[in-house]
């Protein structure tokens, strides 16, 4: 485990952005409307941009000479620190939107808090990313509402998506030793402190979307040895990385 809380924190943020950006990019050319193709690519682009900043910070803070690309392309699954939520497969477009909304609501809270980090690099990246993510949340909230309160079919799909994804939301708010170290150092706030803001956003949007919150259900990755933030992922991440990292793995040292 990396000791410097800045490294851990930046990896977790960067990996979330990388993996979710990758998932979104799988929609390129396949979205249900041209406007959605554009918006999804745009969100993916923002996330890849943020990923580059976070992973570069992680590499710098780590001091082992690893670039953002090294971190993205040359780590195997067990070294990734993203949430299980963002590696979930896309499902239908409603599922993708629901995943985006649940993450965006967390992402915005995390970035707003991170603007107050004692580490100026973190604060700086967070301030840039926050503006983009505020827009992501605005967009995903709007779509959750319109699809949840749309047709019978869309309402059923959004309910199914919510039920399927809800067990992956708990992981966002679990404090572990690395989080406590980061909080002690003033680098970041405790994940648990973000819960209240997230709850408020989610409750409001789901109400407007006429979707019932699944409430207290078993949460993945929060007990035992599990959880993406600790490097224990689902089977989905391995397949994703096999694609993503192919060229860097097959042509080591080449420049592109």
């Amino acid at each position, binding site marked *: 485990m990396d000791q410097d809380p800045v490294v851990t924190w930046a990896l977790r943020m960067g990996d979330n952005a*990388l993996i979710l950006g*990758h998932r979104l*990019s*799988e929609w*390129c*050319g*396949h*979205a*249900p*409307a*041209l*406007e*959605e*193709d*554009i918006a999804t*690519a*745009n969100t*993916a*682009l923002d996330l*890849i*941009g943020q*990923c*580059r900043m976070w*992973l570069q910070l992680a590499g710098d803070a780590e001091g082992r000479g690893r670039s*953002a*690309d090294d971190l*993205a*392309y040359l780590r195997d699954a067990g070294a990734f620190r993203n949430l299980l939520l963002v590696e979930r497969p896309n499902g*239908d*477009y*409603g599922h993708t939107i629901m995943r985006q909304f649940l993450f965006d609501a967390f992402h915005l809270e995390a970035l707003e808090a991170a603007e107050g980090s004692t580490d100026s690099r973190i604060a700086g990246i967070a301030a840039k990313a926050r503006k983009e993510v505020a827009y992501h949340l605005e967009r995903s909230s709007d779509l959750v*509402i*319109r*699809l949840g*309160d*749309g*047709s019978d*079919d*869309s309402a059923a*799909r959004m309910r199914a998506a919510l039920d399927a994804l809800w067990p992956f939301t708990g992981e966002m708010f679990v404090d572990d030793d690395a989080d406590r170290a980061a909080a002690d150092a003033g680098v970041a706030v405790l994940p648990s402190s973000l819960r209240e803001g997230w709850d408020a956003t989610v409750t409001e949007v789901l109400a407007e979307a006429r979707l019932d919150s699944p409430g207290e259900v078993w949460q993945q990755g929060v007990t035992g040895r599990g959880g993406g933030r600790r490097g224990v992922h689902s089977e989905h991440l391995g397949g994703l990385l096999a*694609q*993503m990292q*192919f*060229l*860097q793995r097959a*042509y080591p*040292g*080449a*420049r*592109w």
Partner: protein
Amino acid sequence: SDQERAFQARIDRGEKIEPKEWMPEGYRKTLIRQIGQHAHSEIVGQLPEGNWITRAPTLERKAILLAKVQDEAGHGLYLYSAAETLGVSRDELLEALHSGRMKYSSIFNYPTLTWADMGAVGWLVDGAAIMNQVPLQRTSYGPYSRAMIRICKEESFHQRQGYDIMMKMCSGTPEQKAMAQDALDRFWYPSLMMFGPSDKDSVHSAQSMAWKIKMNTNDELRQKFVDQTVPQARHLGLTIPDPDLAWNEEKGGHDFTEPDWDEFYAVIAGNGPCNAERLGARVKAWDDGAWFRDALMAHAEKARARRMAAE
């Protein structure tokens, strides 16, 4: 008729025709076909590049490719909007695409097999597209002309990015250089085909030229493309896969081998390496997305009803 003569006179004077103004039915139809086909090409054109977004070799390349594909979707939007000013809806155009009545550029029926293809597509395919599109900035139909101006600006950016990928590959490892040569080998003739059949076999051309819907002949543009591309290939250190390519001092341009027009017509007829995949992917996206589009309409209707009830 007098109306038609007056219309042609306006075009000859270089005036722009605007949506609400009178125009011959043939002008309208030809424009719808041409703009629609161009719009379809933009959205189908996302697919061969989408194939490599998930495997882009660096984060920067991934971002650039994402931005490019996003631009293409944006171009599709401009163009469908331009077509809509002629009285055809985007959904009607898409229906025509999905049923096979309308085409998209055949180049997208070729596969992208290595990362160098992302370079070749930008360099050659976008290069050929720009060659076609730059003159169309001066086309007679106002909305089309304005769409072209926006599009050309972005396309030339894409072309430079493609060339930059080729540069990196050609100055890289021997394997990368070989990938670049292989990409050129595979995309050269299909790129030449992008200008359409030889003038002697081209239909509709004379009327389209008079209407300034088409600004140059296919062969003119193809020649220009070859002459522009040959030195670029040389600069990359790549060999154009045409043993008969040679500078012709007399005509001030290159002599070159025509593409295999049988292949061209076979691909248009649906027999290219990827026709079924490309059209299938678009139809699937459309069909799978029906519930989504329906839901947004249902929501809008509900919201409207609620507003009215509240008034």
